[in-house]
């Protein structure tokens, strides 16, 4: 049975959290939110090619986990990877430039949304194949241990992804090899348009960890501090050599599976959407921060404003960037 950490976050102990951490989480979340809402607008305006799987609503998970990581810790991500990349510190300019397909992009315009990566930040890539990032993170953790480093690897995946073989194989592999991998399931209740109840019989994805002899914990994925505490524990555990662990963060996506379309869609009831929106992870953190005096409204607003400016600048950079040269079609197919 997975441990439930969600309770903890209602605990008065939460108030002890250092103001530093709260501000860090807030900043990461705001960056993600603005990056994504602006990307959504650009897409609606027909300015971006390809697909976008927006992360809006799930910011507490990326922020909470990434705040527990070092630059040399590695992550593997999913089709819904912008939030992870932003939170891990990938440059906004390079990210937008990539969405625009510019040569200054994170993938030189070759990869697009689903392949954003930054090796200097330990971002081992978004991934277009559901579940495929899981074994890759296991390999990254293997390399860290092999080289005698104490970095860890974190792999993000959705509720739907836990039904694919690569997840199962990767989890068992990490467990039997005792590798420093943290498995973060972002359970947003849906795999595309199929509710969790339509793709598995379990209520808690975390219960799958037991099949690998792996401990697990369930957190409120709208509560950045709760996620952060759980992640810090799991990361510390992994770093200390105690092996992998799974975190299930219960969360929700505020936009459609792909694109922005809006919140309501036949597959989700208006009530359900409203309930989750009422627990917007940024609102929650801000309200708490203001209530307990960790930050003033003005300070928080300042973060939004600074980030807005940075985003506008990044978009302008992307738009001004040159396109790749078709003469370079074969660039980087092979090394050497």
């Amino acid at each position: 049975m997975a441990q439930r950490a969600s309770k903890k976050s209602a605990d008065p102990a939460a108030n002890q959290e250092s103001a530093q951490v709260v501000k860090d989480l807030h900043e990461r979340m705001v960056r993600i939110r603005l990056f994504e809402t602006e990307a959504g607008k650009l897409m609606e305006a027909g300015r971006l090619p390809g697909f976008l799987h927006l992360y809006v609503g799930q910011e507490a998970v990326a922020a909470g986990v990434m705040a527990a990581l070092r630059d040399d810790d590695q992550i593997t991500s999913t089709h819904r990877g912008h939030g992870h990349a932003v939170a891990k510190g990938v440059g906004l300019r390079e990210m937008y430039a990539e969405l625009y397909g510019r040569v200054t992009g994170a993938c030189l315009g070759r990869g697009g949304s689903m392949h954003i990566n930054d090796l200097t930040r330990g971002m081992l890539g978004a991934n277009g194949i559901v579940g495929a990032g899981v074994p890759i993170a296991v390999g990254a953790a293997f390399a860290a241990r092999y080289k005698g480093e104490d970095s860890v690897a974190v792999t993000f995946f959705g509720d739907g992804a836990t039904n694919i073989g690569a997840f199962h194989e990767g989890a068992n592999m990490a467990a039997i090899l005792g590798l420093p991998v943290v498995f973060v399931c972002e359970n947003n209740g849906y795999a595309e348009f199929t509710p969790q109840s339509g793709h598995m019989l379990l209520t808690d994805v975390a219960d799958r960890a037991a099949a690998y002899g792996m401990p697990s914990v369930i957190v409120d994925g709208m509560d950045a501090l709760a996620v952060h505490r759980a992640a810090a524990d799991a990361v510390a555990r992994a770093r200390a050599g105690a092996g992998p662990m799974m975190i299930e963060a219960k969360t929700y996506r505020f936009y459609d599976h792909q694109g922005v379309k809006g919140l309501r869609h036949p597959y989700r009831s208006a009530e359900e959407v409203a309930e989750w929106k009422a627990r917007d992870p940024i609102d929650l953190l801000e309200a708490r921060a203001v209530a307990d005096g960790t930050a003033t409204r003005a300070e928080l607003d300042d973060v939004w404003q600074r980030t807005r400016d940075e985003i506008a600048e990044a978009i302008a950079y992307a738009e001004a960037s040159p396109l790749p040269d078709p003469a370079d079609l074969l660039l980087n197919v092979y090394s050497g």
Partner: protein
Amino acid sequence: MTIVKEAPAAAPNVVARKLTYVKAFNEGLAQAMREDENVFVAGEDVAGYGGVFRMFDNLLDEFGPRRMIDTPISEAALVGLGVGAAARGLRPVVDLMFMDFIGVCLDQIVNQAAKMKYMFGGALSVPLTITTASGAGLGAAAQHSQSLEAWLAHVPGLKVVMPSDAYTAKGLTVSAIRDDNPVVVMLNKVLLGSTSEVPEEIYGIPLGQAHTARQGSDVTVIALGRMVGEALAAADELAAQGVEIEVIDPRTVQPLDTETMFASVRRTNRVLVVHEAVTFGGLGAEIAAQIQDAAFDHLDAPVLRIGAPFSPVPFSPVLEKAYVPDRARIAEGCRRLLERS
């Protein structure tokens, strides 16, 4: 684009009606389901949502949850479900959404579905249809844009069809479902919204029979899937310059109707093969190898292949456009063939 349409045998009074490629597919599937109670559909978001490409729209309403099955993201189990159900006499249609995902379930397709009849000494058939969307052109990048027909056509026991327009999307799908073998239906994503005339009643298109989409005497162009339309456009352009291109649409790439190709080449003496897949190891290689053998003494120039360069599919539209073959490259290829004495 004009395609010589085969009138279905049983339909003398068909009124010309245009349908999109995806609607034609959907109509063929629905009719095949009406025709045979043993046909059902399984896949990710095929029932409640109607498929991410709208391929399965309205089918849940008509056929209900017994015959329209939403599955978890488990492609190996999904194809396996189809194999087991087919082995027990049903006619499953399983959908793989993007063709690029076959890497996670190829064992079930290649080692199970395709070989089962043979390995079992003929004890059963595996009338399984696998539908999937292939092709580049939507900025979907390297893991959502591939054309992998060369892998599948190399597998004894499989059949593979590549509809090139709405008419074939319907007819080949119906034939795939009626066929007693595992058949992969490779729809093309860019064509989904394209229209052509489609008869209303159910009809099949014989598997393994190529179609001469345009007759011409100067160069034979053999084009796969979406490239058929590009070849026809190139032919229009060249016709204005007095060059007559014959366009052959194999429709089925396994089995491959090479006789139609040979006959054409023996008349035109020049041939170009074009597909979206990377040239190296693509189906064009097999076609070229067979033609240079069967029509050795008839060729005035080597068989010319046009495909994608040897790279993953790039994301940036400016690169993707340069990557995928198009009418301009086909026309230029034809001109090059004609220059060769």
